[in-house]
């Protein structure tokens, strides 16, 4: 039984009489299985938070259905949400209350006692700073408190939206360690993040969305095990280099990425490609193989930065 299952889940916002409605999430279908550390990736404004908001009951879907722990009726979903610990976007707490008092409020809603609050503070390393008011906390402390709140009630599913937002590298590492620890304890984690190398290290599965549409969902290992790509650089026009490369038959695809061309080709055909380019009057000054990372896959699938256009 899937922990999360969505079926054509959509959300359309009507902005006003004169502006057309915006389709923030467009018929997304995916599932998260128990024990997975599931990365939910997409550029800013791609619909990640809206999708998570629908799953958490704060945004009403305009179409489609979803189930949590196999439950889909309104009352059942409400009960199922008691098995979820989640934080959305920035940590949202009462600024005038201490870390501990904020957790006490959450603990009451989740039917937990003070001992659970102590445990959550301990896990996220806030025991010493538990009396600090939320408004006086650093961003790292706020993020840790948010994770602490998600852990109250010993949830089976933990949903974290950009948990490393605003953190320095040390803070990011702390959060990464906490999440990794939770994954190792068999928790199902649904994680949205921009930090792709972190996602690659932490997640077992990912879904990538762009402009509200699901582009792919797969095991991380499957995405990154694709054949490496060749990266070419030469003097002169990068467009000409790309077109000439694409015209060489063994090349499966060639794309401009900034001032270089990224080529999908078998390693054994590289020498022949170099020869072909020399015949066409192009002298390469850089030719290297690049392993496929989650970041490179993400950039390729989402269009990446400007100038990243497909030719073949």
């Amino acid at each position, binding site marked *: 039984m899937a922990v999360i299952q969505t079926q054509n889940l959509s959300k359309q916002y009507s902005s006003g009489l004169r502006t057309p409605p915006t389709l923030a999430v467009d018929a997304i279908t995916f599932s998260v299985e128990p024990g997975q550390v599931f990365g939910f990736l997409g550029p800013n404004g791609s619909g990640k938070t809206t999708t998570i908001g629908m799953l958490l009951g*704060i945004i*009403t879907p305009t179409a489609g259905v979803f189930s949590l722990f196999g439950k889909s009726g309104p009352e059942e979903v409400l009960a199922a949400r008691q098995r979820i610990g989640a934080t959305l976007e920035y940590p*949202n707490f009462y600024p005038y*209350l201490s870390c501990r008092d904020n957790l006490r409020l959450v603990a*009451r809603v*989740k039917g*937990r006692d003070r*001992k659970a609050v102590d*445990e959550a503070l301990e896990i996220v390393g806030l025991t010493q700073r538990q009396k600090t008011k939320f408004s006086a906390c650093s961003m790292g402390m706020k993020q840790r408190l948010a994770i602490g709140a998600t852990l109250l009630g010993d949830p089976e599913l933990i949903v974290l939206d950009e948990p490393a937002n605003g953190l320095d590298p040390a803070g990011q590492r702390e959060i990464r360690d906490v999440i990794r620890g939770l994954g190792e304890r068999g928790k199902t984690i649904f994680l949205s993040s921009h930090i792709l190398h972190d996602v690659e290290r932490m997640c077992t599965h990912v879904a990538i969305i762009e402009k509200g549409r699901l582009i792919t969902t797969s095991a991380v290992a499957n995405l990154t095990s694709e054949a490496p790509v060749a990266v070419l650089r030469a003097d002169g026009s990068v467009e000409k280099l790309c077109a000439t490369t694409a015209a060489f038959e063994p090349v499966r695809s060639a794309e401009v990425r900034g001032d270089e061309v990224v080529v999908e080709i078998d390693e054994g055909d590289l020498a022949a490609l170099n020869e072909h380019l020399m015949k066409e009057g192009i002298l390469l000054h850089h030719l290297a193989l690049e392993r496929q990372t989650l970041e490179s896959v993400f950039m390729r699938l989402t269009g990446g930065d400007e100038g990243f256009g497909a030719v073949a």
Partner: protein
Amino acid sequence: MSAPEKGYPALGFGVWTVLLRNEFFKARHRLAFVVTLGFFAFINFMDFGDDFMRARREDDFTHALPDAWSGIFSGDSVILLIFASIAIIMLVSSEFSWRTARQNVIDGLSKTQWFWGKAILVVLIGIVFITTKLLIGAGTAAAGTDFGAATAPVLPLSVPAALGGLMLAFLSLGGLALLVSVTVRNAGPAMALWFFWITLGEQLVPALVTRVLPATAPFFGYLPFSAAQKILPFWVYDASTYARVVARAEAAEQAAPELPDLMLWVSVNAGWAVLFIALSYALFRRRDL
């Protein structure tokens, strides 16, 4: 983490206890609420304290029970309605700007449960402000009362009736405060809107309209703030106090106030309270957090 308790008590009947405890906890730790309540208490203390001191200085002035009830339950209770409404707006609308309303739902409350938490808060604030006024007003009056010499009951049955009227008037305007809070979702503009309604909507606009169309005057009396004021004075509930008010007016050669149809005005106020709370709920449910 320790193993979860069997079941999830927050979703059962116990949710009401959780909501009450959480709302009370949040309110009493909120400095803005404490300051508002403190300032309200200070105003009452100055008012009733002055009556107490004056009664000790002047022989022809009394501040003792049961006569003092007419001073405790008077038109001045409008101040209570205003202060308590400010407290509601501050406590409710900030839940949206801090996005804690959203987080409360993420943490496991349904939107309906969250809303009922705020409805509980409205009642709680009413109780706290009314109790404060009663403690100070009745406390200073009791201090100046010779209980042995009292010829009439110091706590007549009209007191609970007046208390109910004050609470109902509060629920009507408190409901309006809740409505603007969940609609505007920002304390400053919500407070401004509430005050605009009370001043412009119920004072200035009716004054201008009735100047042009005098026949509309009775209609404006049914608006929430005006209707609330109809059930505040103690003489509305207490026959002997009303007789004194009439006698005083006649002595001053002024027109005595007419006794309002209590059932009508109680119904009007109850109607406003129900309408505002139902509207608040409908609007809150409709919008995403």
